[in-house]
């Protein structure tokens, strides 16, 4: 078992898939010679050449649209967008073409491609560098949306995303790129898409969190344990399609649910999870589902981002509220 951080694990996944399959190639801004602005693609152009690890012009719609064209011919491109804040120019390609091609061509054409990007706040980054737009993506038909929260998951999920027959958006929580180290199995390690991870078992309340929020939920659970509240934490790992069964099973056991996400509240995934629980576990619920989320505001600049991001204080308060309902 190797101890890796998230960046190393993603790099390893890319390296292994490049080695295993000549149809895999990478493209994006500064991914080659520079090795990516977060060094995620470090050393890959040197190892696999400029034809397979392509430094592109500065054009997000271009990167994603070209990758789609490659995928139409059966390649498995992995496109990198430098930050989620620069996703919008590429959304036209994702919404209008990538998510639709299998259906509209009745399966004649498919888009076996991955679009990776760092996302989320908490690193005092400049404007447009801290967004969490996973709910916007989860709302788009025909694409999958994956978010790892540990190095082992990042490795296994990305390898499965690259091998997936359909397009996968792979969101990397940059706040924990290097802040989290974890054991990663040697040899082939795969984590199937669409399956949640039980982060911590507990009997009193279910916390659902993904990305960098898993760590906050874990800290909150520690604090709550001191108060005698045993919180169970579920990390869906794939936010589209969601592992509904895992969430429902946990809430049927605990009777309470708090969803934590950085993204704005309204029409966020917390709303979706809450609706699913209404549909599937109404009679087992002992309190309303509570959401601890970013606000329906513009993501603040660094001086104000601590007000915006869910933290231990807000999670613990929400759990206390649901426990005393």
């Amino acid at each position, binding site marked *: 078992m190797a101890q890796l951080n998230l960046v190393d694990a993603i790099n390893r996944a890319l390296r292994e898939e490049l080695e295993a399959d000549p149809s895999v190639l990478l493209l994006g801004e500064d991914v080659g010679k520079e090795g990516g602005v977060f060094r995620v693609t470090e050393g890959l152009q040197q190892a696999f050449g400029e034809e397979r690890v392509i430094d592109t012009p*500065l054009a997000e719609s271009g990167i994603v649209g070209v990758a789609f064209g490659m995928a139409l011919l059966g390649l498995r491109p992995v496109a990198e967008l430098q930050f989620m*804040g620069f996703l919008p120019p590429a959304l036209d390609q994702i919404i209008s073409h990538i998510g639709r091609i299998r259906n509209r061509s009745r399966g004649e054409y498919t888009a076996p491609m991955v679009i990776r990007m760092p996302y989320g706040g908490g690193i005092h980054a400049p404007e*447009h560098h801290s967004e969490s737009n996973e709910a916007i993506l989860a709302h788009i038909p025909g694409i999958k949306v994956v978010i790892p929260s540990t190095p082992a998951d990042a490795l296994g999920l990305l390898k499965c995303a690259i091998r997936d027959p359909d397009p996968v958006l792979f969101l990397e929580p940059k706040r924990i790129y290097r802040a989290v180290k974890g054991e990663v199995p040697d040899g082939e390690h795969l984590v199937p898409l669409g399956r949640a991870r039980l982060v911590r078992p507990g009997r009193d309340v279910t916390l659902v969190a993904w990305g960098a929020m898993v760590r906050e939920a874990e800290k909150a659970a520690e604090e709550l344990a001191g108060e005698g509240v045993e919180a169970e934490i579920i990390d869906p790992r794939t936010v589209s399609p969601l592992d509904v069964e895992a969430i429902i099973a946990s809430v049927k056991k605990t009777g309470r649910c708090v969803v934590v996400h950085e993204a704005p509240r309204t029409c966020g995934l917390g709303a979706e999870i809450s609706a699913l629980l209404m549909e599937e576990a109404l009679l087992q619920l002992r309190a309303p589902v509570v959401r601890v989320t970013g606000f329906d505001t513009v993501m603040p600049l660094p001086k104000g981002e601590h007000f915006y991001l869910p933290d231990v204080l807000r999670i613990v308060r929400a759990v206390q509220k649901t426990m005393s309902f």
Partner: protein
Amino acid sequence: MQFSDFDPLKGKCLQVLAPDGEVDPKLLPDFDDDTLRTVFRHMLAARLVDRHCMALQREGRLGTYPPLEGQEACQVGSALALAETDWIVPSFRELAATLVRGVPLETILLYWMGNEEGSRIPRRFRLLPVSIPVGTHTLHAVGIAMALRYRQEEGAVVCYFGDGATSEGDFHEAMTFAGVRRAPVVFFCQNNAWAISVPRNIQCAAESLAVKGVGYGMPGIQIDGNDPFAVFLATRMALERARAGSGPTFIEAVTYRLGPHTTSDDPSRYREDAEVEKMRALEPLVRYRCFLEKRGLWSQAWEDDLVRELEGWIEEAVRQAEVHPGPGPQDVFDHMFAELPPHLARQRAELLAALAGEG
């Protein structure tokens, strides 16, 4: 002088002030001695502020910062060609143009310190806040230009962006709109040779970026971007064209980013130090100092006095920015809408209660 004298398709490039400080007297703008010295003062002020910002970032007193060192002539020369009624639509590296416009330095510093108050730039400056998404703002410049014409207001628009932005779709849409609508806008491309790690020849296969004007029905001109006179002349001519209703112009100012893309970037990973050293000899302050000295307008003592004065101004602005109280939790909500909608009022109350430890 006309744009057609400098056809980029024939490899022409406008230069008035050579790297050795010699000028082409036929092209030298009619500046008096005070104005000639003011050009130096503006470039030096930007250089000193820029270096302070780099140092402040290293000390943890400023967030991620994109330095402009090397691009002072591009911005000072062009900003000095503007009338008060003209608009500036910047990207994020236009420190010098912003200072020439008169925006208080403490406001600029607040933005890079991560405080929204740094984007509160009074409308009278006719300068939009920083635009970080690359190339998106080129369309806004065209919209402003079209609105000026529609409202029969005086003025034109200068839009700044880099070589990397010319790859973005929005840039091409902006050029298309401006050409068709004959919008009074000047597309001012600071080609600083590098878009983070991607060099200009990997960004675009064309010999020059100035040739892009042709495809959209507007003149394009390549100029020496380290020569404030060439920058001033080209911008003035483009503005005259715009104000006369003759439409947009594309200016490619060839310059060089001497520093990193931002403080998060390490250029030694993708370019040779030797290249940077070579370009240092061509940077604008070096040649402009030579030029002034040849005219008897520069002495070390004069520059030393100027540096002392500017350092005092910078230190005071840093002090003011650092004593700014910073945003409170309500600032996250209070500027979202003219009237705070009920759901945001609830979220605001919820946060304030959590911070106050109330149930």
